[in-house]
């Protein structure tokens, strides 16, 4: 299916620690920079998408701040996967002729203010929260439950799982933004990792250790999705939106903690794109934790059930090794940036790869798959997959 929408502008806010800025400021600066990257201006924007991470009714506040009067809006909060959902929706709206230039922007001061997405207001209990909070389940603990079940039933070892962290750090060390970020974060001994480094790091929630867990940063970014007509008039090469899908997942009566919404959205997005998983050159997979990536690799079909450990420890996910897609070539949430909702960064690096601009550039990168995971694994979560291509 030929695409009628493309990502034409991107910007990644450079700082991982920013005590002076608000989330709204980061969003606005990122928006302006992404539009500049596209050769467009705020007055060109006729569609606006916002996940509400900076405030309640976030879409309204962002529209006001930027002075944008949209003809199409979207605000589906999928947590970290919101941005993949927005690209999917924007491409559809553009394809339907409802708008021409869609702006998607994000900002967070999670590290500096420790304010959770949405502004941190105390929420009334939900059935799920009333069954989790009393036990003192943490976010890493919830992912650890998934890891516990996955490692037990697959036979994958923590050492194999650590391969994700090792490969991701390799990519981060090649990315000046990531290295500067690690310095900003005060990480000592900034260097490539070994499996032993990972499995001897401090336990957070067994079996997950510090180096199995993403960074906690400030940050933000924006992408601009445009119609074919606008895209062909932009200076840089467009990253065509070939397919996209979003879904919600949860622990079903089948009691499987190891299957995520990616098992739904991956096939949907690939089918829409007319692309097979084997054709994917770059895999930007949400890495809140190493276990997240293992589960996504299997759900999306990069390998069979129980085989992600072998893939992770093979070294084949490196940028410079053929035989498997390059994974998280910016350095991921594990070693570059994770400001609470990482989905925007997956899209930005996917576009860099298709432009030939990545710091770990895959030769002849033509197809990139970005998959965001929102919410909480081993619990209610979202999945959203976007397939981007260098050719329409």
């Amino acid at each position, binding site marked *: 299916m030929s695409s009628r929408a493309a990502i034409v502008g991107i910007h990644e806010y450079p700082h991982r620690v920013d005590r002076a800025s608000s989330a709204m400021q980061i969003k606005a600066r990122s928006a302006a920079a992404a539009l500049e990257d596209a050769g467009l201006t705020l007055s060109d924007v006729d569609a606006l998408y916002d996940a509400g991470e900076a405030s309640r009714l976030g879409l309204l506040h962002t529209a006001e701040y930027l002075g944008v009067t949209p003809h199409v809006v979207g605000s589906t909060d999928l947590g970290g996967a919101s941005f993949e959902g927005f690209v999917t929706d924007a491409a559809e709206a553009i394809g339907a002729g409802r708008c021409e230039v869609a702006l998607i922007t994000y900002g967070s001061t999670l590290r500096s203010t420790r304010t959770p997405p949405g502004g941190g207001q105390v929420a009334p209990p939900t059935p799920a929260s009333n069954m989790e909070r*009393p036990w003192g389940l*943490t976010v890493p603990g919830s992912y650890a*439950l998934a890891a516990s*079940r996955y490692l*037990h039933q697959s036979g994958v070892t923590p050492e194999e799982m650590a391969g994700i962290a090792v490969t991701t750090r390799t990519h981060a060390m090649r990315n000046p933004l990531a290295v500067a970020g690690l310095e900003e974060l005060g990480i000592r001994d900034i260097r490539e990792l070994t499996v032993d480094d990972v499995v001897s790091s401090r*336990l957070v929630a*067994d079996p997950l250790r510090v180096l199995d867990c993403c960074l906690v940063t400030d940050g933000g970014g924006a992408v601009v999705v445009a119609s074919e007509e606008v895209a062909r008039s932009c200076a840089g090469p467009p990253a065509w939106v070939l397919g996209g899908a979003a879904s919600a997942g949860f*622990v079903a009566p089948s009691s499987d903690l190891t299957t995520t919404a990616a098992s739904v959205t991956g096939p949907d997005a690939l089918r829409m794109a007319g692309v097979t998983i084997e054709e994917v050159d770059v895999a930007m997979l949400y890495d809140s934790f190493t276990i997240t990536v293992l589960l996504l690799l299997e759900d999306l079909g990069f390998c069979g059930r129980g085989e992600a450990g072998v893939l992770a420890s093979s070294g084949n996910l490196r940028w410079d090794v053929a035989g498997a897609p390059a994974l998280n070539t910016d350095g991921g949430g594990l070693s570059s940036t994770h400001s609470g909702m990482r989905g925007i960064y997956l899209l930005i690096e996917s576009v860099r790869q298709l432009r030939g601009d990545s710091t770990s550039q895959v030769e002849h990168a033509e197809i990139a798959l970005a998959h965001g995971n929102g919410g909480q694994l*081993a619990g209610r979560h979202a999945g959203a997959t976007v397939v981007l291509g260098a050719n329409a």
Partner: protein
Amino acid sequence: MTSTSSWSAPDMTEPDTGPFWRSAQQRELRFPWCEPCGSFVSYPPRTVCPSCGGGDLPWHQVTGAATVYAATTIRRHPDPWFGARAPYVLGVVAMDDGPLLLSELLCDPGEDVVDRPAVLTWIDREAMTIPVFEVE
């Protein structure tokens, strides 16, 4: 957010899960049961059946027998009340009667307990009775 160092106790007035915690005060482990579907509704317990959409689900008691489905040892918690008690073990237990439940496991921190049998026991926490599981 201030750290007031008190337990985030379950809300016994929450409409879907309040009955679970109220039954616990009588040392009874109950879950909503859908008669037409012949199954419990759990994870979380709720009062509309996700299979048939039926309501008016009676709360049936289960036996205390279960198997550990997944487990983790929480080594740190940002809230001081839980942080002071770390390390503690949490697990998803699969009750023999069907429901899934997140609970605390009585076993050694870091112990490999997945697929081990576990049995319900009751403990008191700050004037409430809560169900935990002894790993066998």
